[in-house]
């Protein structure tokens, strides 16, 4: 049995909506949101979706990294030394899954810059789908999944 649960009910081709008691959340369609990597030799590699991202198949030598969201947003990440994107998600024991953001960790000279791409919007948060929040960290992140730039 595939135990992966659907993110929200009534998901359509563009996005999905969660109705709460006082709030309404719109979220990107995770099946139609993915990364696009371009390499130095001009080849392009597309990711799968937000469930099975496909990042493990990305090679070193990244020339550019972009994210295409189901809502049509195309988000370009600035040129950095290396990239490590992670997906922030919540699961409830009622069978819901809500995607909050993509955190693209970027290797700069002596620090980690994090580009947080917002994947949902509601009546409370000031951030909208496709917004980017940039923060800085001196904390190293160890992972074999860092992909280095060209």
């Amino acid at each position, binding site marked *: 049995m595939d135990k992966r*649960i659907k993110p929200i009910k009534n998901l359509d081709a563009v996005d999905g909506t969660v109705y709460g008691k006082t709030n309404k959340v719109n979220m990107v369609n995770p099946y139609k949101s993915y990364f696009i990597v371009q390499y130095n030799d001009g080849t392009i590699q597309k990711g799968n979706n937000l469930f099975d991202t496909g990042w493990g198949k990305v090679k070193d030598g990244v020339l550019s990294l972009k994210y295409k969201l189901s809502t049509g947003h195309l988000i370009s990440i600035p040129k950095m030394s290396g990239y490590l994107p992670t997906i922030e998600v919540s699961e*409830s024991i009622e069978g819901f899954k809500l995607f909050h953001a993509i955190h693209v960790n970027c290797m700069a000279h002596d620090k980690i810059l994090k580009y947080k791409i917002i994947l949902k919007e509601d009546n409370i948060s000031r951030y909208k789908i496709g917004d980017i929040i940039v923060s800085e960290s001196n904390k190293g992140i160890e992972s074999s999944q860092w992909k280095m730039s060209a």
Partner: protein
Amino acid sequence: MAEPILSFIYNFSETDSAYAGSGGPSGDWKEINVTSSGTPDIKVYTGGGIHQSVETPTAVYGRREATIRPVVGTYPVPQIYIESTIDNIMYHVPLASGQPNTNRYVFGVYVDGLITSDLYLEMWDDNTFSTTDLPTLSGTVNYPNSIFNAVRTTDSAPGSSWNGDSSNAVYLAGYENRLRLKGVDTIQNEAVYYSMYAAIPWDLVFTHDQPIEGYRYLYI
């Protein structure tokens, strides 16, 4: 890379021992059924009223017993069940009874795959994961805490009188008051554990809340 698969598990026995499986039910541990295609299992806090307690180790589906609002202080609701629509029955979680207690392996989450953060247990009003206005989460004038006490037990058992103020414990409510289930920012192919209970404060008004329990994490 791909999302990890989480199994939400609970100890159906009175033996305080760790989960030995690799996802899904195993030994004394059952799995909370989560599904968006049918009715998922729910966690039921009950007992303490006129009839004192609901029968164990299982009870009829839909069975409830009133609980108590104390005259002073707080009253821990004495029983927790997992109500299963698929099995059409309620399963008692014996180690979660009589809280606060020192039982360690009560509830858990098995992570099949890799999480690149800690796993955070949160409670919200609903599946928008955005508000905590329900009285059971926002508390009362004299008791401004969530009634849901939770403690991380992955590394050690809790103290005998633990509550949301204890070490590695919180009163579960939203993003600010959430529980780290491992205390480390990497979890891979392993189980993490916690214990929890609901404590009714003396001035809680009558309510019929159904907050949701959620788990937040990062993956590659």
